[in-house]
């Protein structure tokens, strides 16, 4: 087994990618992506101290700050000693990083934003219109989900997992269920595995449709938004008709799924696929042929490929900057190993590339839904979890990127759980991408990332 120091060296060299870092009393855990596999390391630290990985690998810094806040473990040598998820008794005293220069001014934004948006604080330092530094402060939505899960039966904890980030409720419930199954030694029935993928793809479709429009709306092009919002609504209604809930909360459960596709379900979903296939191409042409819109999205908010690689950015943020990673393909999980789909990758890394990634993924998702419906196995929906103790690390690809769940079951209950949102490795890239852009382009850049505040803060 790899030592802590070897892991640090691999991360710093770039021969491994950090998937997550989390703690429990007396031990710190690390998940790496290396040589095409997930590696999980636990490092005992009975004195509550461990050597910081953030010293040599910046993507670990926020995770280590969070582990210190939540578990009291001290990362020795951590370059940034400030709290992260726990704002402490005196939140106003938080020292933001300095930016010095003759004509700089600061713009503080949030936690309450001018819209229906999740809470977070952005501290802009600007030279005129140009942003010279953005610093994020998150943690406002920290609900203590992982602590709440301890001691719960897996079914109850799954409901919490499905509410870590509501827009990704399937993307969380799925890896949670898979972790519970792997930890307990349970095999879910094939029909359940395929129905889960139907839900995961519907969720991806709804989010991509909504966000393509919302990004354009942040460039003041509301026409796209109006049309995309209707398609999103059609998708949610189809989801409600098929699975009893617009966002499909609590349908993916440990051991299988809670309900079957109704008799009319297949026809409803095929009609949805047909409608989206019909309506999206004219909208794509509209996006591509509107010069005033392209002027805003092309070349704006560029994420450099080397940063995407170093941070292991998942989802469309990473893939729009050349990082070819999709958890459905690698490490892969059923039923995707039996399905044909492309993972589009672009190199430009700007807002436009992230929009195009979403557009391409809408096409792939429609294809996947068709294949899933064509070959949906028949049979049972759910098996009871086997009773054995154990732990497991699972990944699942949500619309935003790979969600990681680590779960330890003891005596049929959740002993510990860790959930890592893809946003952990995307938020820091937004700080980098916005540098040198004008402050008026921040909403556009931010929406093109669409990081989850709730998923990050959990």
């Amino acid at each position, binding site marked *: 087994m790899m030592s802590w120091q070897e892991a640090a060296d691999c991360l710093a060299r770039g021969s491994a990618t950090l998937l997550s870092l989390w703690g429990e009393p007396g031990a710190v855990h690390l998940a790496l992506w290396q040589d095409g596999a997930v590696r999980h390391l636990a490092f005992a630290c009975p004195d509550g101290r461990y050597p910081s990985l953030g010293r040599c690998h910046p993507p670990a810094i926020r995770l280590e700050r969070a582990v210190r806040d939540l578990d009291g473990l001290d990362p020795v040598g951590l370059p940034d000693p400030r709290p992260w998820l726990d704002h402490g008794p005196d939140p106003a005293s938080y020292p933001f990083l300095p930016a010095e220069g003759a004509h700089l001014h600061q713009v503080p934004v949030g936690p309450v934003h001018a819209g229906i948006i999740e*809470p977070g604080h952005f501290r802009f330092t600007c030279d005129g219109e140009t942003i010279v530094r953005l610093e994020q402060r998150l943690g406002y939505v920290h609900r203590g989900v992982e602590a709440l899960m301890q001691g719960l039966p897996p079914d109850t904890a799954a409901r919490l997992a499905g509410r870590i980030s*509501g827009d990704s409720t399937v993307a969380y419930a799925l890896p949670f269920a898979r972790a519970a199954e792997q930890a307990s030694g349970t095999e879910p029935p094939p029909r359940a595995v395929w129905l889960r993928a139907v839900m995961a793809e519907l969720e991806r479709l709804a989010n991509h449709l909504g966000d393509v429009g919302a990004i354009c709306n942040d460039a003041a092009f509301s026409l796209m938004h109006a049309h995309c919002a209707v398609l999103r609504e059609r998708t949610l209604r189809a989801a409600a008709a098929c699975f009893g809930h*617009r966002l499909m909360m609590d349908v993916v459960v440990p051991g299988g799924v809670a309900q079957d596709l109704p008799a009319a379900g297949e026809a409803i979903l095929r009609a949805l696929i047909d409608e989206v296939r019909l309506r999206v191409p004219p909208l794509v042409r509209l996006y591509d042929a509107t010069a005033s819109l392209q002027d805003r999205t092309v070349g704006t908010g560029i994420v450099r490929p080397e940063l995407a690689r170093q941070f292991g950015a998942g989802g469309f943020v990473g893939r729009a900057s050349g990082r070819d990673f999709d958890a459905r393909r690698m490490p892969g999980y059923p039923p995707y190993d039996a399905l044909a789909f492309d993972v589009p990758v672009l190199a430009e890394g700007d807002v436009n590339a992230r929009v195009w990634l979403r557009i391409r993924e809408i096409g792939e998702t429609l294809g996947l839904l068709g294949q899933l419906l064509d070959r949906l196995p028949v049979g049972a929906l759910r098996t009871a979890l086997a009773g054995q103790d154990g732990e497991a690390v699972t990944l699942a690809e949500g619309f935003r990127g790979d969600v990681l769940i680590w779960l330890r079951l003891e005596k049929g209950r959740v002993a510990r759980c860790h959930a890592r949102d893809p946003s952990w490795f995307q938020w820091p890239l937004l700080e980098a991408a916005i540098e040198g852009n004008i402050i008026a382009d921040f909403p556009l850049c931010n929406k093109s990332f669409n990081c989850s*505040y709730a998923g990050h803060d959990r």
Partner: protein
Amino acid sequence: MRRTLLQGLLHRPLTEDLPRGEEAACITLARRLDAAAQRMLGRGLSIRAVDAGSCNACELELHALNNALYDLERFGLRFVASPRHADVLTVTGPVTTQMREALVRTHAAMPAPKWVVGVGDCARDGGPFAGSARCCGGAAAVVPVDLWIAGCPPTPSALLHGLLTLLRRPPPGGTAPAGG
């Protein structure tokens, strides 16, 4: 673009009638609304939404109210950016300890008369996050709540019915929710 706009003019509007009363069960009045103040509001409400620890599902459904099928603004309801312009504060989430201050300040920044609507099961009592040391256990622990709209998350039609209750305009064919 001309083609898209033209098609928009030629087709029937997508906007649907207000769904019938089945959603009214999701709504409870936390406090009796002051009739005089309601008259003052007339036919319009400006709404400021604050996410106080939501998982963002409630936000998605609040957003959906603005789509062409629900078209919130035809009822005189609209979301505004500043609490200074707002009559109604919607609160989502169990109110995390770290959002408490921001919620109190947003409420304080609104001019009177003002109303608070708790949106979703979390805002009611913390929902699935009840009992967390990191949460205050719902909106009423922090601000005075006038109306609850239940659901996890509430559907857009439940949200519409709930917000229209403030204007005391029961849906056609539906029943007005009981006061309490």
